């Protein structure tokens, strides 16, 4: 599964989001999810290979017609908000795919 984090230039806001999301994936022992930061201009070309797109709230207007599961974050440093929304989106994306691609680490 692929999560794309999005911002205007692909190395500021989106990088911050990537760092938090990777922490959350680790906490939940989710493997097989890659997180890729990108900029708005490049995103259109990557959309087909992306399951979930995570962006700051005010990018909503750029994502109205997106084919991905869209996650909009209000507070970029609120890990609780990011955790809830991203885990929910992963569930939705899994349902869409109809498979269980995300393997849980055996402890």
């Amino acid at each position: 599964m692929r999560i794309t984090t999005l911002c205007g230039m692909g190395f500021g806001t989106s990088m911050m989001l990537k760092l938090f999301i990777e922490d959350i994936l680790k906490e939940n022992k989710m493997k097989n999810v890659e997180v890729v930061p990108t900029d708005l201009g490049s995103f259109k070309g990557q959309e087909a290979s992306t399951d979930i797109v995570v962006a700051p709230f005010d990018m909503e207007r750029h994502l109205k017609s997106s084919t991905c599961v869209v996650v909009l974050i209000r507070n970029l440093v609120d890990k609780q908000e990011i955790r809830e929304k991203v885990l929910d989106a992963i569930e939705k994306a899994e349902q869409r795919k109809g498979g269980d691609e995300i393997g849980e680490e055996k402890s």
Partner: protein
Amino acid sequence: MEYSLKELLVKNAVKAKAQVADRNEAIDYVGNLLVKSGSITGDYILAMKNVFAKLGPYQVVVPGIVLLHAHPGNSVIKTCIGFVTLKKPIAFANSQNDPVDIVIVLGARDRKSHIKALAELANLLSNQQYLTKIRKTKSSKELYNLIISLIR
């Protein structure tokens, strides 16, 4: 090479309780501090304004806090961060996180060398107690020392 927040934070571009009238003035104010310190050129200020005009106010990424930057390039002399608190909060036209009273400018020379500093910054901004202290501080020198002391 990845720099830490301590290395990128420009002492002369850390100001407490600055007075600006609107968001353009805010961008100019922090931008000019970084120009004076030899970190960016005036072109970077223009570039940040263009990004803002083109992509909208999404850069207000935390309630009350805007993280401004433009594409990396030659208008950045050295990767740098400016950090300014405002005396009076101003509108940046964000739908949820206005008004803004902390303006942060990232001058990035490339796409990578600031990532460690960004993680440290995110950590600092996610702590409400830290933010309360930052917002209360009235002297620029104290603000600089405070931020440095809060870096984890």
